[in-house]
């Protein structure tokens, strides 16, 4: 049963993939998305059922027996390096499996509606299924190499899905950017893995946990290992300095953004840190780096999100920011809180992304929130579910986002690894989050439409201009016939809305089921700083609610009236410019890395390659040509010359022998 969890989506991939390949071979007739999507959804749904049953089995068993293990085959065997392909299902894996397959199923269902007009839905669903299979391998892998297989696999699928509409050069290059930036991180991961192997001689998590406790290892090596692995995490989970790929990854179809770039793949960094928490716990320096990077990323991305006008870009930066929160939690030793935020974030961010997808779908590929407004009446169901997601991420109690975020803030403040500074950054980020999400919500759903609403009888246009994310249509001329999305898209949103609202229940402070559940697999929760009082927790909770409300209120004051917003923007023109240009990070990287690399490559090409390597190779060729021409003159076809040469050779041998004899 355990093997079935990743195997089922893989089967779905094979079915849809071969269907697509066969279809291409026979001329590529369009197939209905319901068929391809149905297969894909069925496999991932069945996988969810498997995961759920195993999870219930785990729930019912003793705490010590809560690990299921299956070795599928012997993968690598080279001397001391023995890597069986082991899948391990324990408390941590089970939660991730449930989120991946559960949210994944909902997103698959949503995609059936969203990709309804796509030319090759089999390809899309094949990639989506393959992604799920690799993601499940990632969280189920019993050793680092198996995890790494999933890690690279999801990277591949991410690339394939970001540049799904590869005919658009921008989208294709966004895929490349994601892949290349991730490679930088993966290098860190690999080096970390090598260092673990040379230090401990094993890569299996269970064995490592024992070894780390028994083997004395210098703190420097442990810190190096943790930091190298964390480099991998910054790539996959979009942290400073490698976060630049995630906003660009929004070029992919919106369900992809929801599944890969919000709910699952980008959280694998947090999974890795939690899985190896027993190592990170031994290296306070590494933890400090993790916490600092996390907090910095959270704040940094939140500031950028304020000034973005693309609905998906706002959500992308919001994701980066929330991932920063999760690393902040891990960095202060509160791994359970980090995992808790992974789960709640998966719910509400998938909800927000798919809500945005629904809006984009309804608005006929319009993504600019400045051209939206007043969708409350036109898309009432999407409005409702989006509102839940908005309040959840903004941190309004009792929605799930509040509970998990508040716990992170409390731990950032109170943990022995935490500090007031980390809390201030976190709280500031919370305020900004509430502010930019409210801005997004107000500009999209409230107010009056800032586009020309087409007359309701203009139905012909609706079925006409549906080229998903392909272009912005001709809405400006004819008006937009906004329509509510079909039930197949709204229903998953409703489920996620309910989950976003109530998921906080599993991690209520002081009676957290989640913390208790994860206790055996994670490093122990850190001690609190001695000067922190328990009453402070309630004060801070009140403060964080207050912050959220202030953020929302501020957004309403500014963006409730667009004239105020304009005035506000002109007042802070220079700041707005910097923020809307994302602090010029891309330009900075371009100047610092891309341009010098390009220049270096040009030098190497024009000078080293052409003038040195090519010249060596060409002159070798010339030399053999010329010596050939020289030797060729000997072989002129005259038999008598040959005979003469033989004689000369014979005589010289004889002469040499005689010379030897007489001397």
């Amino acid at each position, binding site marked *: 049963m355990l093997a079935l969890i990743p195997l089922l989506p893989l089967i779905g991939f094979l079915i849809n993939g071969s269907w697509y390949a066969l279809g291409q071979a026979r001329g590529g007739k369009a197939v209905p998305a319901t068929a391809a999507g149905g297969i894909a959804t069925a496999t991932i749904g069945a996988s969810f059922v498997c995961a759920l049953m195993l999870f219930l089995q785990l729930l019912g068993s003793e705490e010590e027996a809560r690990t299921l293990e299956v070795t599928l085959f012997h993968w690598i065997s080279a001397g001391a390096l023995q890597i069986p392909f082991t899948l391990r299902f324990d408390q941590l894996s089970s939660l991730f499996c449930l989120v991946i397959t559960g949210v994944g199923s909902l997103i698959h269902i949503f995609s059936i509606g969203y990709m309804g007009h796509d030319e090759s839905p089999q390809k899309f669903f094949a990639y989506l299924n393959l992604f799920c299979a690799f993601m499940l391998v990632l969280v189920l892998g019993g050793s680092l190499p198996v995890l790494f297989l999933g890690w690279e696999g999801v990277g591949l699928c991410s690339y394939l899905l970001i540049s799904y509409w590869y005919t658009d050069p921008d989208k294709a290059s966004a895929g490349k950017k994601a892949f290349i930036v991730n490679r930088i991180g993966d290098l860190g991961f690999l080096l970390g893995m090598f260092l673990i192997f040379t230090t401990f001689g094993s890569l299996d998590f269970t064995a490592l946990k024992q070894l780390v406790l028994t083997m004395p290892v210098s703190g420097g090596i442990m810190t190096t290992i943790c930091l190298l692995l964390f480099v991998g995490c910054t790539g996959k989970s979009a942290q400073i300095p490698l976060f630049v790929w995630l906003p660009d990854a929004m070029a992919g179809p919106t369900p992809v953004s929801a599944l890969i770039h919000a709910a699952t793949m980008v959280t694998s960094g947090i999974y890795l840190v939690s899985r190896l928490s027993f190592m990170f716990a031994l290296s306070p320096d590494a933890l400090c780096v993790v916490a600092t990077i996390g907090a910095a990323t959270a704040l940094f991305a939140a500031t950028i999100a304020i000034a973005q006008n693309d609905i998906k870009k706002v959500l992308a930066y919001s994701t980066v920011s929330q991932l920063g929160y999760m690393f902040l939690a891990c960095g202060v030793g509160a791994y359970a809180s980090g995992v808790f935020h992974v789960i709640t974030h998966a719910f509400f961010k998938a909800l927000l992304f798919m809500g945005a997808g629904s809006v984009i779908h309804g608005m006929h590929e319009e993504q600019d929130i400045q051209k939206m407004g007043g969708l409350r009446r036109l898309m009432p169901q999407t409005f409702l579910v989006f509102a839940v997601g908005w309040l959840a991420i903004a941190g309004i109690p009792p929605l799930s986002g509040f509970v998990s975020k508040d716990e992170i803030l409390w731990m950032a403040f109170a943990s022995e690894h935490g500090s007031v500074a980390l809390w201030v950054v976190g709280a500031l980020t919370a305020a900004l989050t509430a502010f930019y999400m409210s801005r997004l919500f107000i500009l999209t759903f409230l107010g009056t439409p800032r586009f020309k609403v087409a007359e309701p009888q203009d139905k012909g246009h609706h079925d006409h201009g549906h080229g998903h994310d392909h272009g912005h249509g001709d809405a400006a001329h004819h008006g937009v016939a906004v329509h509510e999305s079909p039930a197949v898209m709204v229903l998953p949103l409703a489920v996620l809305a309910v989950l976003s609202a109530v998921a906080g229940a599993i991690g209520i402070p002081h009676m957290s089921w989640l913390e208790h559940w994860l206790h055996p697999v994670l490093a122990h929760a850190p001690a609190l700083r001695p000067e922190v009082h328990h009453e402070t927790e309630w004060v801070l909770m009140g403060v964080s609610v207050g912050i959220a409300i202030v953020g929302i209120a501020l957004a309403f004051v500014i963006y409730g009236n667009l004239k105020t917003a304009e005035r506000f923007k002109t007042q802070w023109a220079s700041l707005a410019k910097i923020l809307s240009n994302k602090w010029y990070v891309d330009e900075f990287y371009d100047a610092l890395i891309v341009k010098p690399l390009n220049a270096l490559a040009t030098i190497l090409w024009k000078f080293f390659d052409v003038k040195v390597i090519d010249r060596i190779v060409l002159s070798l060729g010339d030399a053999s040509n010329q010596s050939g021409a020289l030797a060729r003159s000997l*072989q002129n076809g005259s*038999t*008598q010359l040959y005979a003469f040469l033989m004689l000369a050779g014979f005589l010289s041998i004889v002469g040499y022998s005689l010379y030897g004899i007489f001397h």
Partner: protein
Amino acid sequence: MIPVPVPVILSFCAAIFFIGLAGVLIRRNILVVIMSIELMLNAVNLTLVTFSAALDHPHGQMAVFFIIVVAAVESAVGLGLVIALFRTMRTVDTDQIQLLKG
């Protein structure tokens, strides 16, 4: 009868051999080349016979018989080749027949 001294005979043989060799290398008519080869073979035969007589040992004379047989065969094959060559090339001049090249 005073026997001719061995060194004289050997010098004579060497002279004939090198005359033959020069003929093989220099002459342009294939027939003459083949004749020169015969000359070289017979120079060797004469050498063998000389040693055989001087050392009073029959092996040299035996070898000579073999060489005579082989030389006859060689002449037959060689002349056959020359005729075949002449039929295709219409010449027996080695300067005109330069086919052994890549």
